C-alpha cells in the first residue's frame, strides 16, 4: 500500500492506494495520522479511491486512525470508497462510525463550522 499526503487549507488529505490489509500498513497509517495531528492539523480525510479492497485488518487500521484522531481532538472522514468496500462498511456498520463522501470537495467542505476539527 502507498500513502500520499496533501494539505488543502486546514484539511489534511491522506491518499491510500493498493490494498489495505494489515502487516506494515497498520504502522504506516497510524504513524501518518499521528504525524498530521502533531503538526496541528485536526481535520483529516482519508481518500480510498485507489484502494481496491480492504480486509478486516484494514478495517481495524481505519478504526485505529479514527480513535487516534478522536483522542487527539481531531476527526477522520473518508471519501471515494468503492462499491466493494462500501459493502463491507454496510455489513460491519462502520458506515455509522465514519462520515463518507463521494466527492473531495464535499468532504473538505463538511468540516466548515466543525469545532472538533479546528486546526490548533
Amino acid at each position, binding site marked *: 500500500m502507498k500513502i500520499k499526503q496533501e494539505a488543502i487549507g486546514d484539511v489534511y488529505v491522506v491518499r491510500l492506494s493498493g490494498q489495505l490489509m494489515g502487516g506494515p500498513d497498520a504502522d504506516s497509517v497510524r504513524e501518518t495520522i499521528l504525524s498530521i495531528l502533531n503538526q496541528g492539523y485536526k481535520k483529516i480525510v482519508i481518500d480510498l479511491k485507489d484502494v481496491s*479492497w480492504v480486509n478486516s485488518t484494514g478495517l*481495524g487500521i481505519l478504526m485505529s486512525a479514527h480513535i487516534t484522531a478522536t483522542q487527539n481532538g481531531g476527526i477522520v472522514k473518508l471519501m471515494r470508497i468503492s462499491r466493494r468496500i462500501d459493502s463491507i462498511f454496510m455489513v460491519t456498520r462502520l458506515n455509522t462510525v465514519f462520515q463518507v463522501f463521494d466527492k473531495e470537495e464535499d468532504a473538505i467542505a463538511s468540516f466548515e463550522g466543525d469545532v472538533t476539527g479546528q486546526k490548533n
Partner: protein
Amino acid sequence: MTLPQCDFPADRSIVFQMPSRLELLVVVDQLVQAICHDMDFDRDDTDAIANSVIEAATNAVQHAHGHDVMRPVVFRFLLGDDELQIEVTDTGPGFDLEEVSALDPTGPEGILKSRGRGIFIMKAMMDRVDFDIQMGTGTRVCMAKSRRPAEGGDGA
C-alpha cells in the same frame, strides 16, 4: 498430521496453495474473481465471495500461521452447477469459535474494536460458513454461495 480433505470431484475442482504472506492475498483475490466470472456470479456476489475468501486467508496467515512463510494456506474451490464451495485450510493451533464470535462487532462495544470482524464478515456475505477446527492440527473453513437467478429470467 493434516485435516482430511473433502471429496471434491477432480473435474470441477481448483486447488491453490500459497505461503503465509499477506501480500499474496492479491493473487487469491484475482483467482476468486476469475472463478466467479467463469461461473457468471454478478458483481455484488463476486465481491462478497472474494471478501470472504480473503478474510479466511487473512485469519490463516496472521492468526493460524503467524506469518510463517513455510506454512502454506490451501484453497480448494468446487465449481458446482449453481453453487461455489470453497475450503480454506491452515495448519495452525485452532481456536475457540464460541469465544471469538462472542462479541458482536456491530454492537456498541465491538464496533470500536480494531479486531474481531473477519468471521462476522464471512458469515454475513456467504450462504453457508462452517468451521472444522482440530485443536493442535489445523482449521478448515468451508463456505458456499449460490448463484442468484438473473433478474427477468425464467423465475421472473
